[in-house]
């Protein structure tokens, strides 16, 4: 699966930049971030206790929730007031906390819908996927061990298979920024290993923000970690640094 690195924007522009973003739900400040920057082609892990605002941050970046104030920039483009469809078309892909796939369609059809391009009526009525696209889909499904379930309707898949199907749909869409929300949730150790491998492979070519609770998984990813608590950025650095940080220990890891 060949992925060409993006060369249209300047390499200095951070992929994601949140500045003074405040999201409040009926007065409760779910997110209150001064600054959160992810440079291009980096894999960033975001951890924090439940209710810290990690998913809300993903919501704000992908356009599911609108921030009350502040600025959200994706690849230099101001997406603070953009609709979710527009942001997705900019090249932002999202995996949700609970696997969100199309239950009535088969595994192959799910992947086919995630292919980039062809979002209009005409192309969807008349077009067919090209041979390379078909090969790409089958190659990814082969890696996640879903190749023998090509024509199984997605509702019959196990939880781990659903997670992988959603991750595969994300990968085949070839977005510039991937927001991966708890990819290892409910997976066995072996499955978690494979997921970490998949995400590590994407490191050099795509920007990833991974939300996770499983510390072993985070260790495998071996990358910079941001800790959120109560909607604010608590600490930033490698896993070792963060785990040594007193504030983090008090708020999260020590409990």
């Amino acid at each position, binding site marked *: 699966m060949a992925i060409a690195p993006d060369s249209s924007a300047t390499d200095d522009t951070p992929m994601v930049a949140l500045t003074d973003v405040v999201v409040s739900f009926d007065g409760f400040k779910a997110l209150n971030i001064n600054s959160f920057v992810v440079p291009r082609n980096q894999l960033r892990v975001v951890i924090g206790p439940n209710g810290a605002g990690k998913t809300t941050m993903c919501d704000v970046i992908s356009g599911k929730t609108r921030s009350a104030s502040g600025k959200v920039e994706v690849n230099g483009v101001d997406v603070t007031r953009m609709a*979710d469809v527009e942001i*997705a078309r900019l090249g932002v892909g999202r995996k949700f906390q609970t696997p969100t*796939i199309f239950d009535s369609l088969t595994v192959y*059809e799910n992947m086919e*819908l995630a292919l980039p391009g062809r979002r209009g009526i005409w192309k*969807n009525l008349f077009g067919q996927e090209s041979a390379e696209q078909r090969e790409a889909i089958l190659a990814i499904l082969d890696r996640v061990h879903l*190749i023998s379930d090509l*024509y199984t309707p997605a509702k*019959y898949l196990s939880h781990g298979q659903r997670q992988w199907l959603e991750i595969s749909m994300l990968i085949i869409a070839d977005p510039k920024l991937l927001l991966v929300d708890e990819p290892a949730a409910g997976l066995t150790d072996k499955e978690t290993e494979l997921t970490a491998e998949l995400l590590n492979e994407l490191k050099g070519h795509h920007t990833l923000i991974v939300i996770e609770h499983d510390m072993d998984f985070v260790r495998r990813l071996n990358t910079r970690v941001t800790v959120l608590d109560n909607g604010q950025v608590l600490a930033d650095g490698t896993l070792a640094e963060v785990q040594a940080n007193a504030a983090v220990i008090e708020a999260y890891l020590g409990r």
Partner: protein
Amino acid sequence: MPDTVEPATASQKAFASSKTFLARAPDPNVFRLRAIIVIVVLAFFFIGVPILNVAGVVQDYKVNILGKYLSYAILALGIDLIWGYTGLLSLCQALFFCIGGYIMAMHLSVAQGGGDVRPEYNYIPQFMFFNNVKVLPLFWTPFTSMTLTLIAGFTLPALAGATFGFFILRSRVRGVYFSIVTQALAWAAFLLISRNEMLLGGTNGLTNFYKPMIQARSWIIGLYLLTLVMLVLAYLLCFWIVRSRLGRVLVAIRDKETRLYFAGYKPYVFKVFAFAVAAMLGGVGGMLYSPQVGIITPQNMSVEESIFMVVWVALGGRGKLWGAVFGAMLVLVARSSLTSDLSSAWMVVLGATAICAVLLFPEGFVGLWAKLERQITIGEPIGRILTTAIPIIAVSTFVLSEVLGLTPQSLASPLPTSVSMGALRFALLVAAAVLLYPMRHQRLKIRIACSLAAICFLILSFVAGPVSRFLLSLVTVSLPIKYWLMIAVLVVAGVLNYTQSRTDKFAAKARGFAVGPAESAAEVGTVKA
């Protein structure tokens, strides 16, 4: 034995290792069954019915009615497309049906003109001359030409659907709110068209077309065959749409619309498309309806009609196009038969059917057929296959014999009094037995109430004469035998199906498996491999 070459590309691996790859193609027996049914049905309707009509077995007016039902079936296909596949319950499809119907009716009434009443006013429809309108209004003039009428009939409903759909769906209205808006639309249109000032015939609608269309055999058969051809074409169009990637996007909209937003799709574009196609199909159905029925009124676009149409698709089964056609035929035939035999109780039957369809029969006949296909694929014993097949066969036979007027007269007469008395006694005994079931209940009051009721029923079942006659008068036993036969067959088949599924679950639990379609899908793979 030659060594198998190690599969190299991913697609070769897929073919080699897919355990449900062959599940994509149906089992050969199932395929043969489907092919036989399609060929027999098409041959019967295209060739058989006209021959029977010419031979005098099937009367002219029955063919005319069948043509009318088939034009409704075209509309039902549209409803399946927008509801079964896209998941949008539209309660205004009758409106688009009437747009097409009125367009054709306008042409037909202008062509007929004052007719036999006042031949000198033969350039305006009769109702206008009665309303003192002596000049054809401007918006009527395009419909004097058949070509323009046909063009308008195909495009205007689709345009209306696209416009309404655009405004309703653009704001991401979904679910119940969408249905309410469509219902409001239907109601508003009904009130508007009913007004005399609209010059569309007011509440009387448009009528007085060319009489031979519903009287002369050549016209009746011709229109019937035309409707049949249009139905087949409409089916092929829907089949093509549904099998394309766009069809899969529509299913995805039904399943998880939010996921599509984040995949970069604009679902409302696809929804508007499906809505417009459904509207066009409705318009085509309407255009074929007017000449075959001879009248179209605002009642045809009332809210009750739209809801009635949705019941067809619900009963026939969503998600497979033929279910809509089957459901439409079934409910329409049931309505015409029951209103002639029962008159006032039809609404009760319709309501009960709608409730039962939702509670007991949510997948409709499509689900029953899918179960039959599964049983054939797995190779279940013939007894179980028949249990699933009997309701389908019985209902199809009933529909066909009723719509073509082939029901023998003996079945159309009411049940003899002795039989109905005996049946009533038996029903009371069964009720008494059923009431003994809650005897295990903890609360004393319930036990006392049940035993008292059981004793009452027991006594009643033995007491002959006035009491039974009084009870019989409460129940409408003037119902002809054919309905009792159908009820008996359906109840027995329903009970057998129910016990079958319970036995399956029980046996599976005993073996330690969870029962569900997954099991049969896995079995399909292993049986075929």
